[in-house]
């Protein structure tokens, strides 16, 4: 048997280290390139980018250019991301309001209520369906959810909750904020439910048995023992779902209506989100000869990157047990790594 010499040993270590660092390399490359590429827009738009409503590439045909802070752009060009930020936050918020109770219910159902065999079957089904491509969710949103909101749910909501301004009509076609939020909810329920289930399953058996020995009902067991024990892990799962919802592109693009220049005035209004509108606006942005429109979209992408980065960094802070990826690796059961 030939024994590897020490230099071979260190070469192998170094090579495998480089492979492991490739993810970090990609991450910094993305961050650096987006920052450099967004720089002209950062200078041109200044802080106004963060709270400005209009998003306009300006007049491309007049041949007139304006120079602002030393950067050239077509006359009338103005970029603010507030509409997209609001769209991202509101669609994700609706998704969470719907998805969190349902996911927790599913997790409790699978761990505490359902017979073992049914729980296993439903669990596998939920896991498998978490792999459905987001364009397919979008397709379903266009064909089922938007018409449902436009012709049924929206009208029902205006009648029952119409006294709250944000729920009052007009309902419109159904393509908009509510549909986008509902489709997002359906997309993140399997993620939050699967991780919550793994966390609930880890509640120590003897803790539950002590409770049952004291004569508590299942409701009391869940409320006073299981959920409090699993709280930090569940919060982690919810934050993870929020990160996914904020970054989701295709499904939202297909059912949100891709609004620009106008803030949503009710829950049925068309909205644009940061992720979806990068796709929606890039084609037209390429026609800007000064390149400012493409730089502004890069700044939008950079801002989206930063927001999801902060949300994802919160996951290990608010929880000690869940891991972003480990929770979705089959057989790993979301345990500590």
């Amino acid at each position: 048997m030939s024994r590897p010499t020490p230099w071979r040993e260190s070469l192998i270590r170094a090579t495998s280290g480089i492979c492991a660092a490739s993810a970090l390399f990609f991450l910094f490359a993305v961050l650096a390139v987006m920052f450099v590429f967004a720089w002209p827009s950062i200078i041109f738009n200044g802080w106004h980018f963060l709270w400005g409503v209009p998003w306009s590439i300006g007049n491309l045909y007049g041949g007139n250019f304006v120079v602002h802070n030393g950067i050239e752009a077509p006359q009338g060009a103005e970029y603010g991301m507030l509409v997209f930020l609001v769209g991202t936050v509101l669609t994700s918020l609706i998704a969470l309001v719907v998805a969190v109770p349902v996911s927790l219910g599913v997790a409790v159902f699978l761990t505490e209520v359902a017979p073992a065999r049914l729980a296993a079957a439903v669990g596998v089904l939920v896991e498998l369906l978490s792999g459905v491509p987001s364009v397919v969710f979008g397709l379903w949103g266009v064909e089922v959810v938007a018409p449902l909101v436009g012709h049924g749910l929206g009208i029902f909501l205006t009648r029952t909750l119409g006294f709250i301004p944000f729920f009052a009509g007009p309902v419109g076609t159904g393509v908009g904020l509510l549909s986008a939020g509902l489709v997002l909810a359906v997309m993140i329920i399997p993620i939050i439910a699967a991780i919550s289930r793994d966390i609930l399953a880890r509640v120590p058996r003897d803790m539950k048995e002590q409770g049952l020995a004291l004569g508590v009902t299942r409701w009391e067991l869940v409320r006073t023992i299981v959920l409090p024990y699993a709280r930090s892990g569940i919060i982690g799962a919810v934050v993870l779902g929020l990160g996914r919802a904020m970054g989701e592109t295709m499904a939202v693009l297909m059912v949100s209506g891709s609004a620009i220049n106008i803030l949503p005035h009710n829950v049925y209004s068309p909205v644009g989100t940061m992720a979806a509108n990068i796709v929606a606006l890039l084609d037209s942005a390429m026609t800007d000869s000064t390149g400012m429109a493409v730089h502004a979209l890069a700044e939008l992408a950079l801002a989206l990157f930063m927001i999801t980065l902060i949300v994802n960094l919160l996951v290990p802070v608010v929880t000690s047990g869940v891991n972003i990826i480990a929770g979705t690796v089959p057989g790993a059961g979301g345990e500590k790594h």
Partner: protein
Amino acid sequence: MNGKTSAGRRMKNHLLTVLVVVAALACLVPLVDIVWIVAAKGLAAMSWSLLTTVTSGVAGGLANAISGTILLVVLALVFAAPLGIIGGLFLSEFASTRVAWFLRQGIDILNGVPSIVLGYFGYVTMVEWLGWGFSLLAGAITLTMVMLPYIMRAAEIAMTRVPRGWREASLALGATHSTTAFRIVLRGALPGTLTGLIIAVGRAMGETAPLIYTAGWSNYMPTASLTHSPVGYLTYVVWTFIEEPFASAHALAYAAALILMLMVLAFNVGGRLLLKRRAL
């Protein structure tokens, strides 16, 4: 015990059961509905010629998109699999606790980056700056960034599960650290690693946002060239053709969605079966 409280407690208990069953239904009904609609409308649109002809306008077939999807994912796998598996080996076998922690943070953050941001990065760097244009290589490298974190972490998790005794036995026989890593740990972790790879492939097939501005779209079969030649893929058909007002476009969108779902499902089920059958 006070009978009144007892009745209240029992009712609450029944309420819990009802609520969680409703939640389970609320979770399953939309998912079943999605599968149902895609299966019904997709099957109605399916035909043999769909699989063998290329797209023309908003009609024709999907041969170009199917082969494009496979090409993009296979090429991305060629990049991501070695990086991910050997990187996972480093995390599990060679890295110090602190270095491993630091690298894991990077991997998890990359995993959380919205795929459209990766797509925009691919557009700016490869399509524009390097001048490759919409191309197979730009699309595949962008997909690599999507697949890499999952493959690396799945591999690492599989490797940390290889029993410590196996490593000790190997070292006791005089094998070096790296020989042990490659001959014992890598081999022992093969089922879990393969499962990670297969699930990553399934995910990559369903991606759209990283490809729109890197791979572009083409009505023709993919060419042999890595750059300067756009590639069609299935998710593009689902996204754009459902917005068209023509019946032929809708049929194509549903057929593409059905093929996608079947491919993704096959990979998901296959990966999980593999893990179950050959689990450590």
